[in-house]
């Protein structure tokens, strides 16, 4: 009885967020349906979504985010680190297990968010000491370092998002300024060196970003096709499964990296605005949850999730529309992929869990 009442109360308070979440699930399924005649991706994605939804409900109701111990997270973190080392040795981005491929970087984000939140919350201090800050930087940098050789873009973005998270957790101001200065000096010295070390396709992405129309067949191909797809969607879009770019396979990586272009082409400005609005609302609500949470762990955890989701969105869609260089980051609730789907559900379920558990506080 008690629980039922609480659910009703929770719904009354967070109805819009629940609706937004459900709409995102719908959008994800719809967008993969819009990809075209190859149904294999649609069904795989559908199953992943069902699994994710099950996980979401289980975590939301049967789990308490406060119950996870730091020891367990260290264990998970260590396991992830080992996995990344193995992958770095083989220069692979995925671990392939039978028909499934497992992308550790997706789960790394969840573990790191949890780990950082728990670690900082335990101290009960709203500001980090220099020692703690440096320690946490190392905690972030270790997996990022192992990710670096196999997935440069993702490694950089993960570092950026967690550094941002640390700033919000109370990163010491002096240390930040010092590090920033050091970073600037180092980058001025190292950038020309690093540029020469970049692989041709990585350089090409930069070229393509700077002037996509100049290299329409080579470096700028992806971004050009993405811009054409989005631009040709217009106000109302070309309709589900009707877009030229999608249907005639002009869009590369339409299932994953450029899933937003598919959506924007099919449903136009109205569709893209809808997606931006729902996703944005959910992040906004996440910040509200962080404000309302009664314990530090809840506050930190929901903030971390919001930051992760924001960066994910920023680099995927920013890349697709040509604001940022193209990276191979999937967009939660648009892209296909087992790891990204499950980890997105995992993060959202934690967020909702914080919101739900707020009322159980003793």
């Amino acid at each position, binding site marked *: 009885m008690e629980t039922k009442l609480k659910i009703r109360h929770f719904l009354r308070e967070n109805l819009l967020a629940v609706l937004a979440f459900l709409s995102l699930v719908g959008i994800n399924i719809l967008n993969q349906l819009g990809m075209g005649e190859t149904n294999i991706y649609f069904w795989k994605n559908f199953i992943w979504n069902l699994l994710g939804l099950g996980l979401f409900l289980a975590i939301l109701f049967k789990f308490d985010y406060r119950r996870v111990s730091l020891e367990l997270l260290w264990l998970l973190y260590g396991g992830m680190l080992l996995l990344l080392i193995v992958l770095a040795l083989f220069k692979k981005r995925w671990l392939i297990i039978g028909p499934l491929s497992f992308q550790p970087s997706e789960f790394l984000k969840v573990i790191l968010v949890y780990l950082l939140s728990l670690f900082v919350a335990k101290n009960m201090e709203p500001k980090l000491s220099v020692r703690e800050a440096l320690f946490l930087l190392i905690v972030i940098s270790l997996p990022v370092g192992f990710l670096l050789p196999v997935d440069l873009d993702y490694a950089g973005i993960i570092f950026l998002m967690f550094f941002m998270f640390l700033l919000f957790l109370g990163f010491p101001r002096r240390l930040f300024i010092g590090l920033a200065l050091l970073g600037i000096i180092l980058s001025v010295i190292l950038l020309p060196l690093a540029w020469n070390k970049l692989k041709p396709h990585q350089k090409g992405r930069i070229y393509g970003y700077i002037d996509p129309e100049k290299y329409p067949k080579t470096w700028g191909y992806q971004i050009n096709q993405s811009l054409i797809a989005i631009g040709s969607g217009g106000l109302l879009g070309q309709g589900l499964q009707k877009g030229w770019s999608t249907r005639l396979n002009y869009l590369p990586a339409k299932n994953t990296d450029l899933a937003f272009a598919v959506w924007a082409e099919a449903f136009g400005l109205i569709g893209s605005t809808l997606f931006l609005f729902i996703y944005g609302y959910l992040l906004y609500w996440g910040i509200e949850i*962080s404000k309302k949470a009664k314990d530090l762990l809840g506050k930190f955890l929901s903030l971390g999730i919001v930051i992760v989701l924001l960066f994910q969105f920023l680099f995927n869609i920013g890349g697709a529309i040509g604001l940022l260089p193209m990276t191979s980051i999937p967009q939660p609730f648009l892209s296909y992929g087992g790891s990204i789907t499950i980890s997105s559900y995992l993060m959202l379920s934690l967020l909702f869990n914080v919101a739900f558990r707020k009322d159980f506080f003793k």
Partner: protein
Amino acid sequence: MKVNNFSPIKVSRIKRSWVEGVTLAELWERRLFWLKVLLFVFFGLIWLRVFYLQVVKHPYYANKAKARSIAGYMIKAPRGEILTADGVVVATNRAIFQLYIDLENLSDEESILKKLSLLLPEDYGKLKEHFYLAKRSSFGRILLKRNLTWDQVARIMVRQYYLPGVSVEVEAERFYPYGEAYFHLLGYVAKINREEFEALRGKNYSPEDLIGKKGLERLYESHLKGQNGRIEMERDAKGRLGRVVGRVDPLAGEDLIITVRHDLQMKAYELLKEKRGAIVALSPESGAILALVSMPAVDPNKFIIGFEEGEWEKIAQDPRKPLLNRALQAYPPGSTYKLITALAGLKAGIVKGLHWSVACSGYYPFGNHVFRCWEKRGHGPVSLIKAIAVSCDVYFYTIGSRLDIDLLAEVSRAFGLGRLTGLGFPEEKPGLVPDKAWKKKRYGTNWNQGETVVISIGQGYILTTPLQMARAYMVLANGGFLYKPYIVSEVRKKDGTLVFRNTPQAEGKVEIDPQYLEWLRAGLREAVDVGTGKASRVPGILVWGKTGTAQVVALHRKTRHLEHHAWFVSYAGNSTPQIVSAVLIEHGGGGGAVAAPLAGELYRAFYKLPPQFLPKPVEDGELPTDLPGGLTNGNQAEN
């Protein structure tokens, strides 16, 4: 249920040293506020960019998407057919398979060519060479191979998926069933070149179109062409074509019905085979062209299927000039011109009636020169009719010595000489009718009466085309009407509706005293019955005609007879003349021996009489007149 909603974490629970009077919740809220600002900025920026792409730049990207995803192809309109008056199709289309390569969709030239060379099968090196040659010269799709067999089509079609950029199309290709026989009349079609394409921009031409380059094909290009259709197909990222999204059906070109009688044309072609010359036959009742053949000619189909190696160079450099339409080139008319001299003489009162005669002793002294008659022994006394019949030069010299050149020119012009006939062919020459003013302008000297003497027998400056001569005799045949010659009688759409019909157009009526006309006609009859044109006689049919042997250039004596142009201009009919013809054999020899028999054969064909074996040319006819030194010949003046 009591819900403990806002219980802030007490400040007392945290160290006071780094929080001064502010609760942790407040501190956290301040941080979250900045995150919210960041969220709004990021989402706002991204939304603005999406708005810019999808609304402001939408037309630009939509065009780009369309250009990339839709491949549009012309569907060539079948060209109109050309039919003769008796219903024979002389220019038509046949369906063939063409192998095209679209450079836009071609990803890997080498591998595609290699695959094709295995499929066709054809030598890879040759195919590659052809491809690169065609790539340089063409500016649309490349026609790699024409007229594929069913087998080849099947082999390529089933593998189309693996051959992006390769397409096989059924096309209506021009075909001339009678080849050379109609070459100069119909002309030919060939692939449009860049200049023509630029000039015809906006008129629905595709870079792959064939365009009329000569003859009727060129003259009636706008009717024959039709409207190209267009098909639009989706093209995927790999260049493969899919669904048809738009289609405009082609509109076939209009058919021409020409006045030419096929049997006559073929007969004329047969007669001229192995010779150099032209035959023009007209209807004296309308000016309609019944046959027009010039030889040598080229097979017009070759322009479509392509010449063999070196063949085109051979044709272009052939001294016999097969590309020249001799029916429309200007030549000295020789004795065929004498009729006009005679009429001018009658008008001027020099010839005083039928019995006014001149004693021909084989030569005629005038000034410092002695002009010779072709008959060295002389004709004795000759009157008008005999003079025409035996083509006595001295008789006409006598007229010429007293005739005003301007009057002669005036009569000539009344007969349509010295100007274009209005047939419309661009290669037509106007010929030349000299007069005093012309000489003044051309040479800056005054007219010399001796030149009139030469012109009176059709030598010297005077130049006419076979078509002009046939037309001039048409005036004698029909009693004075100078019709504009025409070839196309009707233009019809494919469904049979008439686009337009040509009606005979008289350019004017030549006023000839009926008595003079009677006398001239009698002279022409005599020439065929007993005179120089005997070889053209046809039993049961009346033929009126005049031979001519035009001296070209006085060359070496041994080969001299080869250098004469043989003329025979005549008309024939039962009671009223129904056909006028001009036969010209370049460097053929005597008109009576070489040209007249051809006219006879032509008339036999016209009246569907059995053909006679052509008698071997005997050197008993008229020989050209030696021109006295110092007088240039027309051809030289022209050159």
